[in-house]
């Protein structure tokens, strides 16, 4: 049930400096009905499931703190209860609830008050800022914790700013389960340099740790007939910074795939080189841990009524090895036909091993590994609930 892939892993990446083999790999899976943690050794052949954690809770994201290798945060809510953050300091053996989860302020004279529906995105802070975390919420809000996720404070320059609130629009302007603030990026060279995306509402950048912001939308396209100068109309789905070249950003957008090389300020639409029958719309964007010319997307059907399924029911990743000049299909091992799932924006990632493997979670509850940089796909698990997010970490 597999066919030959047209893509091969680039030899140049294998020769790049890679970390020493870890003792084990851990994959964190957030789903509509709970969280799972999958454990393996450095060979990544056999996986042991630990879970469910928080069965019945909607878990939008589970993230490991890379600064200590044992603290986990999980963004949770249920069908009835309000949103919260759970925290573990022993890799999920036990959990404790945040004392003060993300919650909007209500400043006098400000825009209309809002309530957090759910925390959608979690990003650990800079390596030099121990215990700092960022969270993005729905409706769109940006929050920071400086105590490892125990208490959270809103960033007023985003959450209570009249211009930002106009760009955020209303619940009518966002994704079906609410508008999202996502893709919170901390520059590994500078903790003051932050970026985030809003669906919808554009890409934004701060050079002063979030006290002031500028838009970063030049070159990004919008839905036909709308004005690209209007920030509200921009819908970045996922933005990633290249660890191997932090001046390079990739973006999967509602209207194409883009690359931006700083200090330039104009996004280049690199998705035009994708096959026309597949298109260049999807949710996730994945960047290589070392090679800034290598990145992956997982296209979805954006024709007519936007089915948001794999095009033609034939799921595949696409990889570029030259910063978007060409793309190759990677589908060996994936279903050849009648597979109508897709992959959400947080549900695809890559590890940092010498021969990196990709990981993706599907809306149908399957967890896949793409060995040799996506050249060969196989199942880690199936029959999970709808998968919202997948993260991977190497532990000593």
């Amino acid at each position, binding site marked *: 049930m597999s066919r030959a892939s047209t893509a091969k892993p680039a030899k140049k990446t294998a020769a790049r400096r890679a970390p020493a083999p870890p003792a084990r790999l851990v994959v964190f899976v957030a789903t509509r009905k709970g969280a799972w943690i999958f454990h393996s050794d450095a060979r990544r052949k056999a996986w042991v499931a630990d879970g469910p954690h928080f069965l019945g809770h909607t878990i939008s994201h589970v993230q490991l703190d890379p600064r200590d290798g044992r603290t986990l945060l999980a963004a949770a809510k*249920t*069908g*009835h*209860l*309000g949103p*919260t953050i759970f925290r573990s300091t022993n890799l999920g053996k036990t959990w404790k*609830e*945040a*004392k003060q*989860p993300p*919650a*909007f*302020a*209500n400043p006098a004279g400000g825009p209309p*008050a*809002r*309530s*957090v529906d759910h925390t959608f995105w979690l990003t650990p802070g800079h390596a030099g800022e121990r215990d700092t975390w960022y969270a993005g919420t729905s409706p769109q809000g940006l929050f920071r914790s400086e105590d490892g996720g125990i208490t959270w404070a809103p960033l007023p320059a985003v959450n209570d700013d009249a211009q930002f609130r106009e760009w955020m629009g209303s619940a009518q302007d966002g994704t079906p389960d609410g508008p999202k603030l996502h893709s919170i990026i901390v520059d590994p060279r500078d903790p003051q340099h932050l970026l985030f995306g809003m669906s919808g509402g554009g890409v934004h950048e701060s050079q002063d740790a979030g006290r002031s912001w500028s838009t970063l939308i030049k070159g990004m396209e919008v839905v036909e007939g709308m004005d690209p100068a209007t920030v509200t109309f921009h819908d970045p789905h996922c933005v990633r910074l290249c660890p191997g070249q932090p001046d390079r950003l990739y973006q999967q957008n509602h209207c194409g795939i883009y690359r931006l090389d700083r200090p330039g300020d104009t996004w280049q639409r690199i998705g035009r080189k994708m096959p026309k029958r597949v298109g260049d719309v999807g949710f996730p964007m994945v960047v290589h841990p070392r090679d800034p010319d290598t990145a992956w997307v997982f296209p979805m059907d954006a024709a007519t009524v936007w089915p948001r399924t794999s095009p033609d029911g034939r799921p595949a990743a696409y990889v570029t090895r030259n910063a978007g000049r060409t793309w190759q299909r990677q589908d060996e091992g994936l279903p050849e036909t009648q597979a109508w799932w897709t992959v959400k924006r947080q549900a695809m990632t890559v590890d940092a091993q010498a021969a990196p493997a990709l990981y993706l979670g599907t809306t149908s509850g399957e967890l896949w590994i793409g060995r040799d940089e996506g050249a060969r796909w196989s199942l880690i698990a199936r029959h999970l609930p709808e998968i919202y997010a997948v993260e991977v970490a190497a532990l000593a």
Partner: protein
Amino acid sequence: MNVLIPGALRSYTRQSHVDAAGVTLDALFTDLDRRYPGLRFRVVDEQGLLRPNMRVFVNGIGVRELQHALKPDDDVAVVLALSGG
């Protein structure tokens, strides 16, 4: 007063019925949060509104206004409305 706690909140209280005090529903949830930290925010949002799928009954009468006055011998039931799938 006696407060009936729904199953979804028993990870906080560990029991179905608890004692708590307050002259209003708002004060009652503040007291419940003091006894069971974190409980209030799961039921009442940061703008002081009962969350959409939570229902509260005082002596069998449905109430959504958190300023609703309470008496010491009232029976309060926190109930989950139908939702989800």
